[in-house]
């Protein structure tokens, strides 16, 4: 998966979680710090992301806290080859 495709998958999972997204999601966005997700949403978001990708993201365990989109794109690209 390319970085653009990974970003699209992240945006889709975000929309599935919170309904609608205000503003653009870029690799510089921090989903939690920028107020798009709260702690509960963040877990639902990760679930939606794994669901959408059809694979479990091994780099993300229950204590995962880095919600910078750039970091998430890295993880998705690595997991999907």
């Amino acid at each position: 998966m390319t970085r653009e495709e990974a970003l699209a998958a992240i945006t889709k999972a975000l929309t599935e979680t919170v309904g609608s997204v205000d503003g653009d999601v870029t690799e510089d966005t921090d989903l939690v710090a920028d107020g798009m997700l709260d702690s509960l949403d963040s877990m639902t978001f990760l679930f939606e992301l794994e669901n959408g990708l059809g694979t479990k993201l091994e780099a993300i365990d229950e204590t995962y806290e880095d919600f910078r989109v750039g970091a998430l794109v890295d993880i998705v690209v690595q997991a999907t080859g």
Partner: protein
Amino acid sequence: MLATIQILVLVTLTASLVYWLLPAGWVEGRRAVLLVTSGLLIYVWSPETLLIAVLTALLAWLLYALTRRHPRIGWLPWLIVLPLVVNAIVPLGELIPLPVGSPRSPLLTNLATLGLSFYTFKLYMSIKQGLKLGSLPFREVLTTTLFYPAFPMGPIDASQTFDHAALSRDPDVRRWVMGVGRIGIGVVKVFVLGAWVKGTLSVELFGVPMERVYAEGWDTPLHALAFAFVSFLYLYVNFSGFTDIAIGSGWMFNLDLTENFRFPLIAHSIQNFWQRWHLSLSRFITAYMFKPMLRRTGRTSLSLVVTFTLIGLWHEVSVGYLLWGLGHGSALALTTWYRGLGRARLPLPGPIRTVGGIVVTITFVSVLSTIANQPSNRDLARYLASFLGVQL
């Protein structure tokens, strides 16, 4: 009670000074100061409490070792809740053999499991983080279990808060002074503000102090609602005050305990409430209960309701706390579901929406909290009936 706090403050001042007299390189000496002080204080409070806490810490360490050996058995760390489950059936204090003829105070039996709910979750977190890091020394497990300022009611921190790096920090006078100040804030909350809410305010509103309101009952729905606000305010002042004392004590040893409250009385939604109330529990719930359950069931609403119901029963196995868990879980599920629909918010000006949100949220959580904390099922029935204007 105030005398107890004075003793605790004095002990903390002395222990922290002894702690800082030891060189940073002598970490285990510093740990010994924390363990001996905590162990002695808990022993004086109730020897059974100390015994149960040490045995539970040992169980946690054994579960960690077992899970490392058998990593495929993912549920093994959850066996740490066994003492809690057993205690819900038979109070653990009653299972401890005393010499023949020893008097057994019912109060002592209750105290025997003081803090058990909190250190159970601390220990679960410690096991999980230990597995992640590949190391969990028993001395760290014991320190997180016994550290006396956080022993009775948290915050919920893993044993890594007391690891080698944390205990080898240099003395920090500024933090030590801030710790003393934070303890002062906690003492004022608990003994001045809390006493005012429980006494003066309650007498002003209900004619009797708060604890007697349960016996007197509630005449009207408004009366019951007003009582919910007052008792929730008391809970917040008391709980956050004790948390201030715990965090301030931690600072005196240059240790970082998790902040537990962020102005929960201005929460504008139920989701926002859980980002402000009992944060260490909220983090535990999200990471270790909600997320694994969501992965298993694939259903957000179901996972929320089940998770919060279990958390309700973790507080206490009672009808009140069952309703508390179902209430919080259902409200979170409902708001999450509604937000997921992507519908527009209510067409109201922002400030009105925010104030309205605060009123609805605080009313909801206050009533649920008051339901949960009713002393008996009969009191609970009377309280619920009073909302319908019925006197039982």
